[in-house]
């Protein structure tokens, strides 16, 4: 009998600075599927005035040797300027934005609003029977908030995926 072997895995946050050209996102996402790497989260937006450069934040997991390969394979793409493994580099800030729709009346509605205050989630849309809360924070904080809302009339969740940056004054 034959079994498929598994290796111990790590979770890493990478930022990738790229030329903002057609097909670049497909190139990067496709690299992950083609080589069997995992994407837990991927965000992208242009970061320069002339819209020529984008920054992509990718959260991935895999064995350490695979993380190193992901780094090298990303660098190999011509439109990629720079790849930074923030997890490898050290302390960094990782934030995500979520929109959370909760519907309910009475006690549940009051409780939802109270918990939202605790989490510093802001209502951005209000009807007599619903809220949409906007919150930013570390992904696990959003997880906790969403979990609490489940019993209080959670309708819909939208999350951006994380954006991350190394701590300290220097550019990573």
């Amino acid at each position, binding site marked *: *009998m*034959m079994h498929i072997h598994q290796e111990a895995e790590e979770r890493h946050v990478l930022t990738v600075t790229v*030329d903002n050209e*057609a*097909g670049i996102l*497909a*190139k990067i996402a*496709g*690299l992950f599927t*083609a080589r069997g790497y995992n994407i837990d989260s991927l965000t992208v937006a242009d970061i320069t005035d002339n819209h020529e450069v984008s920054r992509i934040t990718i959260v991935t997991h895999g064995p350490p*040797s695979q993380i*190193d*390969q992901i780094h*090298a*394979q990303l*660098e*190999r*793409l*011509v*439109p990629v*300027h720079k790849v930074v493994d923030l997890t490898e580099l050290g302390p960094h800030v990782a934030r995500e934005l979520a929109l959370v729709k909760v519907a309910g009346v009475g006690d549940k509605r009051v409780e939802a609003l109270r918990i939202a205050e605790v989490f510093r989630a802001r209502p951005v849309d209000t009807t007599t029977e619903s809220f949409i809360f906007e919150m930013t924070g570390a992904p696990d904080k959003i997880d906790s908030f969403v979990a609490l809302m489940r019993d209080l009339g959670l309708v819909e969740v939208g999350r951006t995926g994380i954006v991350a940056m190394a701590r300290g004054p220097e550019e990573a």
Partner: protein
Amino acid sequence: MEFEKELGVSEERSGANILVESLVRQGVEFVFGYPGGAVLPIYDALFGDERLRHILVRHEAGAGHAAEGYARSTGKPGVVLVTSGPGATNVITAIADAFLDSIPLVVITGQVPTALIGSDGFQEADTVGISRHCTKHNYLVKDPAELAAVIDEAFQIATTGRPGPVLIDIPKDVQIASAAWNDGPTQRRQRYAPRTQGTAGEIAQAVEMIAAAKAPVFYTGGGVINAGPRATQLLRELQAKTGAPVTSTLMGLGAFPADHADWLGMLGMHGTYEANLAMNQADLIVCVGARFDDRVTGRLDAFAPNSKKIHIDIDRSSINKIVRVELPIVGDCAVVLEQMLAEWGSRKGQDLTEWKARVDTWREKKSLSFPLNDDAIMPQLAIQRLFELTKDKDPIISTEVGQHQMWAAQHFPFFSPNKWLTSGGLGTMGYGLPAAIGAQCGNPDSLVIDIAGDASIQMNIQELGTATQYRLPVKVFILNNEWMGMVRQWQELTYESRFSNSYSDSLPDFVKLAEAYGWKGIRIETESELDAGIQAMIDHPGPVIVDCLVHKESNCFPMIPSGASHVDMILYGDNVAGTMDDEAKALV
């Protein structure tokens, strides 16, 4: 106006025209291609242009492999021109082949007009999407004003760093629309600048490791060939200083002369006993431009267990991909070898007498020997005779894929680079004939021979017509055993001789086929006809197919079966169980 003239802004030209001018500016001699609806403007621009020679193939796959053969044998990039849709998809295999073997290609594909992209138009395919992961880079050009810069960058990317295929998809309207053409040099984007040099610290450490090694081996690959003839020369110089034995991958054959006393032969699955044992027992492996491919390493956990490893490669992603190394050096083989030679100076390495004596005991196994047969020509013998009778002419050899390819690698020695054209990484049957055609275009005075098998040759047999049309005197030497020999061999060794669909039934009469295309056909049936048949092939001024009937059930040995280590080689005369466990079967 005067001011504009000084700047060199001349006139408006069509996209097709800009493409042709740009190719000429890049020094392109040959374009391998096939016309179609979406490239008609480009073909019209080529019409009557004497500066570019267009080689009309019979199938787009042939264009891709011909460009590969041209590139591999000349060191220049190969250029391909095909139409949209099926034209582009037909060339994908060749692009994937060039990607794995690091061959510089620039592939131009026509595309439906910009406004029709995404509408499932006639002969529309998402060429950029399909080729994304088998090209080094690709482009869809939507404005003729971008063409000159894109083509300039495409050639730069294809030929520098780790070479590879670059595809440029050009919609038909972009070929027709016009833009300003400037005769001056193109403004180049400065975004691709691969690292070529090792750091001083890395070089010093490498030299120290080599000087301290008691059992070193150079393990060289296609990167040495890609780094140009200078890298080959520098490898020989560094070897002379250190005295370490040298083995090579399939792709690296020719970088080191096969008649050198320290040459071990090819390593890996069908490598020599001495090469694989030396790798297994070495205390230091110096990998130069190779990538620890699965065909080379065998079972990974038993690969070179007692050695430190230095890995020189221009592609950082090749390092630590499969085998972890103590000292990675990212750089061009020629540059790094030169740095190492300078650092070595007049140093003396360890006394390698004992190590070389051990190597000699492995050589005594004579792992490439094979039993002769009274009734049939042994395929290995046919290759040896082909070498003996052609060696004065320093021929260029291409191959298809399978047993004949491995026998050629084992029994046809090479002494210089760019003479050996084979599909290593992708293993593409049908590569050899078009590759030989491309090589003959680039080397009109050379003897170019495709060593083929009866199954492989049929995969791009239509290219016989291309050689006829351009009077290219390529030779095709078929080792005909009426089997897909390597498949048959694996079925014998792994599946208890259940020969599922590996028999080459209904073979054509290759002699008559040759004649139908205006080639000469020669059949060799017995050993007594072998030399005369080969000689007749060499003497004929035009293209020739030799149908050499060889022993049908010969296996290619030595062989490291899948899942085995370098010390578990099968040699001729060994008993083979004829089956394997599932773990081994699951390996390719």
